[in-house]
């Protein structure tokens, strides 16, 4: 069976580009704090969502809506409305993380398929089975803390479908369980749908070196001729003991294209591409390459070589936790 390619769409144009490029499934969010890519200029209003779903369905593709931040106390109605509107728009599933919201969706929208967001960081088979039995969750997006053999072991113990990230940004912390960003800026993935937000980034020319600060904390400094990566907190350069460097993670992005055959063998249903903030041309190119790769895998042909190197934007790529030595 061909593995399902699940592609990001930050805008209606990206959705159409991803579908035309061969995405089996597109995921997106409403333009508010209910989703974990709550960036200015991104995401869908209700009409755009309805039209996007129609376009995808007309082309044989599915649409998933991420409602995967943790609802704010006293304001849960905003998230409840997002679930109801997603169902009205005809989406194929919602991607949720919060226990209360899962319970709400299971009770009030039982016919709406539920996926568990990576933001819930369900990292073992007990957890997958728990979300399935309590809330009828059909698919879980696995956190980026697991090796391929661990993913295989999980799939051997559950009927729930698994989806794993294969390309794009890489969280080095267990997703949904990190408040580094709000410690430095007051804004977090869980509460606000943002991490290391651009609104809190400042660059300073420091005697020819460019220093990048987040919430007033220096995240890295680079020489005038060096590329300056975005100051994502966990990929910053810090000192501890006698060491100075990228203590948590290098400024790398995830590329697990070479692991597609192993992930297929591990029983993974769907491959997810990160990047709702990316351009539609980027999305289209990544989709085309991954679609070709999963078709090749299903047909028993060798994987196309080095197909995405140019898209990692000069950054190094890593297979992350899928290789056990990453830990």
């Amino acid at each position, binding site marked *: 069976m061909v593995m399902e390619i699940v592609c990001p769409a930050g805008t209606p144009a990206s959705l159409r580009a991803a579908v035309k490029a061969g995405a089996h499934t597109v995921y997106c969010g409403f333009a508010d704090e209910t989703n974990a890519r709550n960036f200015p200029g991104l995401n869908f209003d209700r009409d755009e969502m309805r039209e996007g779903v129609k376009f995808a369905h007309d082309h044989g593709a599915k649409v998933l809506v991420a409602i995967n931040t943790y609802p704010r106390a006293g304001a849960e109605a905003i998230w409840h409305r997002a679930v109801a509107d997603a169902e009205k728009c005809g989406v194929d599933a919602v991607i949720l993380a*919060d226990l209360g919201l899962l319970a709400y969706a299971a009770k009030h929208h039982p016919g709406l398929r539920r996926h568990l967001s990576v933001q819930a960081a*369900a990292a073992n088979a007990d957890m997958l089975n*728990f979300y399935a039995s309590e809330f009828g969750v059909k698919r879980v997006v696995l956190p980026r*803390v*697991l090796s391929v053999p*661990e993913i295989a072991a999980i799939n051997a113990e559950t009927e729930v479908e698994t989806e794993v990230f294969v390309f794009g940004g890489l969280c080095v912390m267990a997703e949904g369980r990190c408040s580094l960003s709000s410690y430095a800026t007051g804004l977090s993935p869980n509460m606000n749908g943002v991490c290391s937000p651009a609104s809190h980034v400042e660059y300073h020319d420091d005697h020819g070196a460019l220093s990048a600060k987040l919430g007033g904390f220096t995240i890295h400094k680079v020489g005038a001729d060096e590329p300056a990566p975005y100051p994502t907190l966990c990929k910053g350069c*810090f000192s501890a003991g006698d060491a100075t460097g990228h203590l948590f993670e290098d400024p790398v992005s995830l590329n697990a294209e070479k692991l597609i055959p192993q992930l297929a063998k591990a029983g993974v249903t769907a491959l997810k591409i990160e990047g709702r903030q990316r351009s539609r041309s980027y999305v289209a190119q990544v989709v085309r390459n991954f679609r070709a790769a999963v078709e090749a895998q299903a047909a028993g042909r060798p994987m196309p070589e080095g197909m995405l190197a140019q898209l990692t934007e000069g950054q190094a790529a890593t297979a992350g*936790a899928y290789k056990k030595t990453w830990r």
Partner: protein
Amino acid sequence: MQLTVGPNQFFWKADAWSDFYDQMATAPVERVVLGELVCSKRLPFYQDRIPGAIETLLEAGKEVAVTSLALVTLKRERKLTAELADAGVEVEVNDLTTLAYLPKDAPFSVGPLVNVYNEGTLAWLADRGATRICLPPELPLASVTALAAEGAARGVAIEVWGHGRLPLAISGRCYHARLHKRTKDNCQFACEDDPDGLSVRTLEDQPFLAMNGVQTLSDSCASMANQLEVLEKAGVTALRLSPQTGDFARVCQAWRDRIDGTLDAAALSAELETLSGGMRLSDGFLTGARGADWSRAKEGEPA
């Protein structure tokens, strides 16, 4: 306001671990949560001390709970989680995996590493048997207030992170091992040399974070010293004090004095700074613009 001593987040030698809980038996706190929170590899070094410590604390009249791990992935860790209910005391859930193993009718408490951000989640956990919830440290006062009201309506005690380095993230990767150019499986217990965590500084030498194996903490010591009245008014019923080395019994006493009204906020803050060897205090998650902020910062100091 009650005081809870949270589970030690760091890797301490077994004798230091035992001494700490002997001291807690006579410390002016109502409740003690113990066990391994951060890394299952540490547990064999002191696991045999846990039953004795539980007994000592129970005899001293403390409420006692054992914590789950913060991140359960391995088979061995799932087995440890399944066995928690056998300890004979309440279990504090810090990873939802624990719920898969707790008997349906067993009351439990919920620790700060479970995402309880809203009334719906609190209600679901209460229905499942939660009797106490220590809220995630990143919540602002408005959320704490709403959740304390919901907790009161449902008979769930609401606790807030009162003192100690903040648990900011948990990972599959061990940063102590990485720092020593080792893998997690061959970590050689590098974190043991840093019983309060290892300070992580910015390139401008500003203290920022602290690494503790797979966990990342704040460099600052969170403190609700200035927020006690606000939290009491919101309906919060307990403050959590998170263990650090040094004279922690005195830290507990200082907090007790603050609650009893014999020590004011400024005096408590000064005392805590002294007892912690000069750690910077913070309470920004509750009332500041960012988590690292401190409501009593002097002019010219970092907020």
